[in-house]
């Protein structure tokens, strides 16, 4: 496997991974582990765990991990750049078109349809996350506290996230021998 084939694999993933998130992760697993056999399943799972731990989108983190394991630091950079390149170009194109068409009433009508749909999608994503992760008292309490801090007290969300990361690190260090 050479650098060109690595770049082509992630370009393909970047072009075809619509929907992002978990759909994208499944697609990467399909391409890298199953079709190309560049990495055994257990190493991929390990990488996925790291990708969820680091900040940033899980997909690009996973690409960086795979690229790094296969071709070192340049491989990691190549994988993430190839993954982002197609959507970067597409977003630029749409952004340029936005400027040209923003005055047209048809375009405004389309946006008036898209805006509520985006909120519907976000609500569904949040509901799915909540169903999967809010299954006991502590997580429910944490979600309520973070909601109150942001929505009622207008605390900057950066501080809330960093606070939660700090709590997680402290709990992980303290609870070495029992569950957190």
């Amino acid at each position, binding site marked *: 496997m050479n650098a060109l084939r690595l770049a082509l694999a992630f370009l393909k993933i970047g072009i075809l991974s619509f929907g992002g998130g978990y759909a994208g992760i499944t697609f990467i697993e399909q391409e890298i582990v199953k079709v190309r056999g560049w990495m055994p399943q257990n190493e991929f799972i390990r990488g996925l765990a790291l990708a969820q731990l680091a*900040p*940033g989108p899980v997909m690009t983190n996973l690409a960086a991990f795979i690229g*790094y394991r296969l071709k070192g630091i340049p491989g990691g950079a190549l994988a993430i750049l190839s993954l982002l390149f197609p959507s970067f170009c597409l977003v630029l194109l749409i952004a340029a078109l936005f400027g040209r068409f923003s005055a047209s009433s048809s375009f405004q009508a389309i946006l008036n349809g898209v805006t509520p749909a985006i909120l519907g999608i976000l609500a569904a994503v949040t509901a799915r996350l909540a169903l999967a992760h809010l299954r006991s008292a502590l997580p429910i309490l944490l979600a309520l506290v973070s909601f109150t801090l942001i929505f009622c007290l207008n605390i900057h*969300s950066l501080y809330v996230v960093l606070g939660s990361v700090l709590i997680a690190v402290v709990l992980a260090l303290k609870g070495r021998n029992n569950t957190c």
Partner: protein
Amino acid sequence: MLKLFLVFLKIGACFFGGGYAAIPLMKSEIVDHLGWLTNDAFLNAIAVGQVTPGPVAISSTFIGYRVGGFGGALAATAGMFLPSFLIMLLLSAFYCRYCREQDLKCFSRVVLPVVIGLLLAVILELGSPAFPSLTAWAIGGAAFLLTMWGKVDFSLTVILSGFAGFMMFK
């Protein structure tokens, strides 16, 4: 331009728990704190991130372009993805020698609920002006159902809603 890069560097270093966690942080910084975009323009940026392949965080490219043209788009994208790339390289290099399964569980039990709370707040903040009519509620509800139980791809849902908007509001 440098400001754009630094703002997104800050966001990129701080969003944990997957791509969606970036949305509340971007909204806090770009809309509430800096006032670079209105609620509506911000929602457009999220829509563009949804309809294109790749991670939703690519919305940063769109925001960068709206604020600072092509250079702004480059600066914002670089800032957004650079911190996670560097941290990921570090983690991969050490192969997380000292982490255990349990620590990861601990992390997701604390950080993910907080992210869920943030997302809920951001939906309510962005949502109140976005539903001016019954039609808008119908489109939003349909998108919710399609994503929640229909297992329909996000980009297809966005395209369908654009079509619905064209038919209803034109």
